[in-house]
């Protein structure tokens, strides 16, 4: 029987060390635990951090009912096409 060099040196064969990268059930459980831990830590940070509102303020915008801050140039009178028609 052929033994690889690793096995002859008392080490596990490289084939035994390499795994398929497809996630196993254990991997998914670990991922879920770490994700939950991160989300909880992040939300706790959001809740306890002073000066950090839960929701970001949208950029300041003028309301439609307000006068615009910039004065607009006077509108040019629009020529009506109908006037040119005899």
């Amino acid at each position: 029987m052929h033994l690889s060099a690793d096995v002859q040196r008392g080490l596990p064969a490289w084939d035994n060390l390499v795994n398929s990268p497809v996630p196993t059930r254990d991997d998914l459980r670990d991922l879920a635990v770490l994700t939950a831990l991160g989300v909880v830590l992040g939300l706790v940070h959001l809740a306890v951090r002073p000066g950090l509102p839960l929701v970001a303020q949208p950029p300041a915008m003028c309301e439609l009912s307000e006068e615009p801050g910039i004065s607009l140039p006077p509108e040019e009178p629009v020529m009506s096409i109908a006037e040119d028609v005899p």
Partner: protein
Amino acid sequence: MTHASGPRWAVVGAWLARLVLAGVFLAAAAPKIADPLGFAAALANYRVFPDVALHPIATVVPALELVAALAVLTGWRLRGGLWLLGGLLLAFTGLLAATLARGLDLDCGCFGRDAAAVDPVGPLHLLRNTGLLVLVGLLLVVTRRAAVVDPPR
């Protein structure tokens, strides 16, 4: 803690890759955790997140980076940490690629927002993230399931 022996170069390489990944993500998480408002402002520039989500994202994403980096560094739930890092990297890379495709010129914010050292989004960011993704993939292939690659003695 279980031990995974193997070719010495593989054990050393895996440990180095874990150090690199954990170091990069710890360095990325720390400034964001210290200045979540700055990170939220950097996120707002991408113009893809609604205002209501900016602050939760600005605190949860760095916490996920921190947890994943510590998992990869310590070996506690190592493969879960690697999957989490891979998911974060994929999300970051997609966001950066979309930003480049839209032609937006903005600060990456990858390591927090530093007004003194603006880091505009560019192809090098994609290259860096791709390299980190390759490291994650290699570690997922090399590490034994439910086992830890210990540092060389």
